């Protein structure tokens, strides 16, 4: 058996995706050879294309939150049909455009997925880890510049930029392999956006991978780009 380091993290073959149904349906990828790409561990991918072309829909499809009409996704060479939806979504994790912050403290929010969902508890057990302790939570808060926030503070009272960072580290604590970041810096001030962006980069450098859509930072992506062209095909530009 080959080790994970030589296998691509995610391969997407001949994806066919559409948004909407019936008359108003819009074809986003048409399912031919030009709808194929490979995602490698350690890489930061920038998903580009004109607005309304289906960037979000593609990310949702990769997380299996939007239906795939045809094509194959593989996680470490295992077909998506052979991996349960729950497990898939914990490995290939969507960071939604608008952070979803629950009623409760910052600590409640950070531990929410690990506390609530069966699959997350199972993965903790597989990794032989326990719930992150206070030091870990504080270290993570520091890593995105949320230094002076007490863990007991009510999370819904945080600013938009603070909530975006909270949502990011909440996701990082679930230890995904690939983060699909859908405009994670939208509506967030420049300083907070930089902190989010840098933390995502750090995640790539420590064995993760990121696909991100964003209006900002296009100039700073040196690694790779997935371009959706609006003609139902895409192009992977690997610098």
């Amino acid at each position: 058996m080959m080790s994970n380091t030589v296998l691509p993290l995610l391969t997407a073959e001949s994806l066919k995706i559409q948004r909407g149904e019936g008359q108003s349906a819009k074809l986003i990828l048409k399912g031919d050879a030009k709808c194929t790409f490979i995602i490698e561990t350690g890489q930061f991918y920038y998903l580009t294309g004109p607005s309304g072309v289906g960037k979000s829909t593609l990310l949702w499809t990769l997380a299996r939150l939007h239906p795939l009409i045809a094509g194959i996704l593989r996680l470490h060479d295992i077909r998506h049909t052979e991996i349960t939806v729950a497990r898939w979504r914990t490995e290939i994790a969507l960071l939604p455009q608008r952070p979803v912050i629950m009623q409760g403290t910052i600590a409640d929010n950070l531990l929410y997925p690990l506390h609530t969902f069966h699959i997350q508890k199972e993965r903790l057990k597989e990794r032989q880890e326990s719930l992150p302790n206070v030091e870990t939570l504080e270290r993570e808060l520091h890593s995105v510049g949320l230094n002076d926030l007490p863990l007991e503070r009510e999370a819904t009272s945080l600013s938009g930029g603070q909530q975006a960072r909270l949502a990011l580290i909440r996701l990082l604590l679930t230890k995904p392999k690939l983060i699909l970041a859908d405009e994670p810096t939208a509506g967030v001030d420049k300083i907070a956006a930089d902190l989010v962006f840098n933390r995502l980069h750090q995640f790539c450098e420590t064995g993760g991978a990121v696909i991100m859509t964003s209006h900002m930072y296009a100039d700073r992506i040196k690694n790779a780009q997935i371009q959706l062209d609006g003609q139902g095909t895409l192009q992977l530009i690997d610098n």
Partner: protein
Amino acid sequence: MMTGAIDIGWLELLLATFFIMAAGAVSIAMSLGLLQSLAIATLRTYLQLIALGFVLTWIFQIYTVWIVLGVFLFMMLMTAQISLKRVKHKPPNLYFSTLSAVFITGIIVTFSVTGLIVQVEPWYEPRYVISIGGMVLGSIMNGIALALERLFDDFKKRAAEMNQALAFGGSPWEASLPSIRTAITAGLIPTINSMNAVGLVMIPGMMTGQLLAGADPIQAAKYQIVVMLMVSAATALGSMISVYFAYKRAFDSEWRFIF
């Protein structure tokens, strides 16, 4: 035990309309625009209840298992339909899951009361099965309507949170649980309130009926306790089962929120 209530003559019955006509006059005077609906509702009350009287007379006379079961089945079909009609925003294909909830709850509660508590002979004695069944189904209807209305309302409000839960690998059940709790609570609260208030604020309808028919007040109270608990049980079971069957309709087989 019962001596029977004093019969009301047809003329005297029409006299009762006088009071509702007074309400109609107020509606006109204050231009509430309620006269038409008031008139229709009054007419329906007359027609539906008199029709019910005739139907019950017929059922009580025929006294066969199949008629009793047939009528009970018809009542259950109506219960499912009417309770769903009262839920405004809902996913399609809810009828059969709701009907199943009505069936399970309606049959269990009605026949537990007639068979185990009141112990009627024969078991299908229409005087008991149809009237107790009617009360049970009525409360199931309220419970289901309130619970489902609240469930899908809460789903709409929590859409982003539901998708986030699924994105974390949560199952439809895990994503729905906060809404399911809210929905079942909403279905139960009116019942709990009326259980607390019963006998203090008002004498409940069934007990009044028995008192008018000349029953011993303690006897009537015992019946009312049975009815009260049975109605609560029916509401609780009905809302729980219907919500349990219904929440899944908001998801597809790949655990995507499609409502």
